[in-house]
């Protein structure tokens, strides 16, 4: 054996029987150390170092973390045990956990926001003058008087509901029944109903959704019913809601931003809106 070969096994040799190396290799190494003063000294130093390690281990044997740490951890474990079993409602889970495609969630959220913006922009487009005049003609000169009317007269089928027509009544039944049927079951019973949470949006609780609060956009009445619907919580600047003619409750009227729920079809177009009183 040469010195450089000895160097490769010197640590194992210094550890003695504790390290499993080939017996013949061990014997060859030890024989080399007997004949080579430099390697013998090297082996002695490594053995001395091991002795130093053993002394250090022995000295530190009683060292341990302070008892307060165990108490802290125990308290944390108990608190954790209380919190862990709370189940997450399945309906609030927006997307299944897919770590490899985590970006898809954000991409879909961004697409949803764009679609909402597009839909709202369409809703805010000024009406053609003749159509607007017709709607103004339908409007009562004193809205407060009309609000007191207990049973609004249902609009004829050919007269599609408009935002302005809806403005004076919170009663959803004032809108055509066909539209009402389209929306109500999907909101309350569709198991595929999802809620999207993006940015300032809040997760809507399905049990709180009530179709009667929603106001249908005028263009939505002429659109085919969507296959699926979603509720999206959006904060609107108050001044942007005013042109839609949506009544804002007194309690939140002085806010700059009003929470609303948009009913968005699977095609991304908002169909109806409601103001959230919180």
């Amino acid at each position: 054996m040469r010195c450089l070969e000895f160097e490769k096994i010197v640590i194992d040799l210094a550890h003695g029987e504790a390290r499993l190396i080939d017996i013949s290799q061990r014997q060859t190494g030890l024989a080399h150390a007997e004949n080579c003063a430099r390697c013998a000294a090297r082996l002695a130093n490594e053995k001395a170092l091991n002795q130093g390690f053993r002394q250090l281990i022995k000295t530190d044997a009683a060292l341990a973390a302070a008892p307060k740490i165990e108490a802290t951890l125990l308290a944390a474990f108990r608190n954790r045990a209380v919190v862990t079993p709370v189940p997450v409602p399945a309906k609030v889970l927006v997307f299944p956990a897919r770590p490899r495609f985590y970006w898809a969630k954000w991409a879909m959220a961004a697409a949803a926001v764009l679609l909402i913006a597009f839909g709202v922009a369409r809703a805010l487009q000024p009406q053609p003058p003749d159509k607007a005049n017709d709607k103004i003609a339908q409007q009562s000169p004193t809205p407060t008087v009309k609000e007191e009317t207990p049973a609004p007269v249902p609009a004829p089928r050919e007269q599609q509901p408009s935002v302005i027509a809806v403005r004076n009544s919170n009663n959803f039944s004032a809108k055509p029944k066909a539209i009402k049927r389209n929306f109500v079951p999907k909101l309350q019973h569709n198991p595929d109903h999802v809620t999207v949470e993006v940015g300032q949006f809040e997760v809507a609780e399905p049990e709180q959704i009530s179709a009667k609060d929603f106001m249908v956009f005028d263009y939505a009445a002429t659109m085919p019913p969507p296959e699926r619907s979603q509720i999206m919580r959006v904060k609107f600047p108050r001044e942007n809601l005013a042109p839609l003619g949506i009544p804002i409750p007194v309690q939140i009227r002085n806010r700059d931003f009003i929470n609303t729920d948009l009913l968005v079809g699977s095609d991304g177009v908002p169909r109806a809106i409601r103001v959230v009183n919180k």
Partner: protein
Amino acid sequence: MTAQKTNEHSDDELFRQMKAGDESAFIALYRRWQDGIYRFALRLSGSETVAEDVTQEVFMVLMNDASRYDSGKGSLVAYLYGIARFQALKRMQKDRTMISLDDDDWEFTSDHLTMNADPLLDLSRQEMVKSVRDAILVLPVHYREVVVLCELQELSYADAANVLGCAIGTVRSRLHRARGLLVDKLRPVADQALARN
């Protein structure tokens, strides 16, 4: 009950019970490994405060992120030491209190082989312990951690490789270099002891 679990159950068994919410299993795991983790962090950082913080953090991670441990990838103790190493290094980097030898380019050659006849053997026990402890603390971190794991915590090369996230061969070569550095560092102390005697 806890003491019984400490003796009777394997780490993985205790871990499963802890995951299921068994408090005594968690305590059993803590009592089984806390001293080793504490000493590992202490030897790595040289600070009792850091060692205590690291020990607490390791078991907090164990209880809160239990799903991260995969028994197929390594032993629980390697997993715990891995967390401890990460936490200790993070804390040391933050505190910047450690001094490192500027000898990362140190190569083990035949020139480092000493001609002195076992000079370290004459160190008194107290001197030896202090000298070895100090010498370890001034090793570069990547050498220090391998010495602490393999020589002081007595982990196998495989477990140490698992903790460090490197190959067993890397552990062996780092250990070899680290020990060479320690011998060089301790030689003057040994010489002084010899001169005194």
